[in-house]
């Protein structure tokens, strides 16, 4: 029995923490909000130099060939700093999809650049109407010999302006439900896309609406099985969700620290507010949420790496718990800070907003409940209800 990250993993965390401390933790996110893109650029270069972008890429393509658990400490640190950008989407969704489903050409074309930190992927899934269900995919990719003709609109595409590639869910045939859905990689430089920025409550992440009108791209850009991209996507989402939990744990840890520190120094009625049990016990509740989220997240990543029997329910339940607990404790954090917690100046609200961004990100809470229920064998014949 050994339920802990190993020494190398913790050491790596140490390097990343030190580096993010040196650039001021959430300072980069705040500069990004103000429109400054340069500090994020240089931070991403810094992280790539540390090796963060190559951890889970196979050695053939310039990576370290490590697993999901090795990514965990880095993800936690990015969550703590509320890092803007597409590290999570690139390394925990695009990379697993490419590694598992990519053709040799695709792997050679994309993985080395991800590994050296010069390429980032976004994901274009939702369409106006906002449904993550297969029926929500109406964006068409008509097959014309070896070309695809794209028509449709995607919304809430995360950090589109930072991405040089998009993984797009498209309809390649008029199949029912998930049949006929394919995954496509669009290279921004090679396709004619119209983008319109959408305002995000979490201003540390940019969103955009992306429109294609008779955009032509090569058939070779299909990722994974033609018409059967939905199932491939589910595999990628397992990695993504396990990783998302780690990001959230890092953010939650910072929230608990903020609340604890403030409760020690803020005095009212002649004593630190941390002596009042209404405050003290609430912080303990937050700490319990944090540690439970952490245990579930670490286990989910272990289950993924070791292909455990309970892998799917471990991941969906970890996600359910983490997203809900993150929202809950970052709300409490504002209350514990009182008036100053309500200000723009304090970081408290940044965590509230990020928590909301993740709540229904790449699948709704309800869908993950259904996924967990199906994995536990509680939906029997109702498997068709399982959407994600």
């Amino acid at each position, binding site marked *: 029995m050994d*339920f*802990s990250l190993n020494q190398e993993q913790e050491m790596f965390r140490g390097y990343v923490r030190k580096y993010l401390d040196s650039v001021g933790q959430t300072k980069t996110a705040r500069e990004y909000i103000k429109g400054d893109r340069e500090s994020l650029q240089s931070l991403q270069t810094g992280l790539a130099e540390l090796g963060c972008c190559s951890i889970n890429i196979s050695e053939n393509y310039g990576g370290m060939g490590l697993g999901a658990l090795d990514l965990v400490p880095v993800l936690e640190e990015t969550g703590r700093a509320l890092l803007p950008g597409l590290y999570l989407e690139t390394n925990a969704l695009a990379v697993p999809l490419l590694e598992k489903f990519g053709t040799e050409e695709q792997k050679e074309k994309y993985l080395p650049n991800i590994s050296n930190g010069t390429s980032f992927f976004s994901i274009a899934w939702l369409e106006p109407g906002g449904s993550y269900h297969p029926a929500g995919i109406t964006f068409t990719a008509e097959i014309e010999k070896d070309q695809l003709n794209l028509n449709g609109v995607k919304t809430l595409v995360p950090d589109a302006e930072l991405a040089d590639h998009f993984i797009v869910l498209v309809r390649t045939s008029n199949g029912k439900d998930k049949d006929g859905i394919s995954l496509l990689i669009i290279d921004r430089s090679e396709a004619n896309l119209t983008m319109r920025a959408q305002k995000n409550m979490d201003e540390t992440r940019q969103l955009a609406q992306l429109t294609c009108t008779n955009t032509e791209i090569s058939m070779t850009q299909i990722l994974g099985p033609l018409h059967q991209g939905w199932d491939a996507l589910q595999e990628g989402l397992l990695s993504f969700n396990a990783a998302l939990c780690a990001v959230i744990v890092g953010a939650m840890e910072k929230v608990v620290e903020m609340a*604890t520190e403030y409760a020690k120094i803020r005095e009212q009625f002649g004593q*630190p507010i941390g*002596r009042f*049990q209404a405050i003290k016990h609430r912080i303990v509740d937050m700490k*319990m949420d944090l540690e*439970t989220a952490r245990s579930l997240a670490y286990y989910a990543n*272990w289950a993924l790496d070791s292909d455990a029997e309970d892998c799917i329910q471990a991941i969906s339940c970890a996600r359910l718990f983490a997203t809900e607990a993150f929202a809950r404790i970052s709300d409490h954090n504002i209350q514990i800070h009182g008036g100053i917690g309500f200000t723009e100046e304090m970081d408290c609200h940044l965590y509230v907003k990020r928590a909301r961004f993740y709540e229904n990100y790449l699948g709704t809470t309800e869908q993950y409940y259904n996924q967990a229920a199906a994995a536990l064998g509680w939906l029997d014949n109702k498997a068709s209800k399982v959407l994600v």
Partner: protein
Amino acid sequence: MDFSFTPKEEEFRQELRTWLEENLPEGWIGGTREVYKDEYEKAAFLRSWQRKLYAGGWAAIAWPKKYGGREATLMEEIVYQQEMVKVKAPALVNYVGIHMVGPTLMQIGTEEQKLRYIEKILSGEEVWCQGYSEPNAGSDLSAVQTSAVKDGDRWIINGQKVWTSFGHVADRCFLIARTNHFEKKHKGITVFLLDMDQPGVETKPIIQMDGQHDFNEVYLNNAVAYDTEIVGEVDEGWRVMMALLMFERSGIGGQVFTLEQQFNELVAMTKDLKEDNEPLLDNPLIRKTMIDLYTRSRGSLLNYYRNLTKTLKNGRPGAEGSMDKLMVSELTKELLSKSISIQGHQGVLWKEDAISSNSYWQDNFLYSFGQTIGGGTSEIQKNTIAERILGLPKDMGR
């Protein structure tokens, strides 16, 4: 990261499992055994069970070999708890003796005390109870008022204890009493190994909300203890009490595994019970509740394993035990509360009229209220976590 047990640990598990199968009463493992007539019959049965454990070498596995233990590793203790929970083994009637008094005496007892008491704790010949709580001293044990006054080589003890589990069957009591008054209330407390079988000790049953009688009031009216029955130094009992807490290495494990088992039984119940011919589990609201409970009970088990890893690495348990106790007891209460709710109005049917599992859910639901109180209330656990783990300021008055 590794969740497996070593072959040696699995061998240990198999050995215990075989022994349990051979030694538990007929029908125990299948759950068809009869319930006891009253608490005295129950106590007699539990004593005989402990004698069996002793004979088989399974009564106190963590104890040193020279005291009749097996020097089991921490992981073997975990395996032990898992297996005991799996077969719903009878309670250890001498829990206080084995987990508290024995280890304390081994560490700070005199040679005479070790010789006099330890063997009998293990065999169950002498059952112990714990005399800490009083009407005016519960969470705040430094407020104990029971007094012990020196009289030659004897001490005359007067006062009252309460909530004394097993007091009605115990032969001896690990008792705290005030022997002196200092400004610091923690000082001046002494630990006695009191003989329960004497005219100055009177035990009165307290019936619990679940209808059972496990704990008691104990009246001390010129009860007598001797110098030789003091553990550690006079007036320095607080240290002994604290030392004792450290002996419970494997901590709350038993309850963690019980929670896991109760969750699995709840799933079975929601598949068995039907409303309008549909299993309860097919109701989306109930299913959501069940996934919440699954998630958090997995979480508490995994938290426990993570803390266990820390204990294994540090060689001793830390304050994280409070987190396990808090989470497991609160979650157990919540799970059992839900187990009643989802039975609908029929959930109020009790005892032989209960609609599921012989009142298992109703009885455990009622029993669960004690779990967030006994062994330190949830509020006290939160204080401990806040102060010892998060470094928040101490409560007023301390």
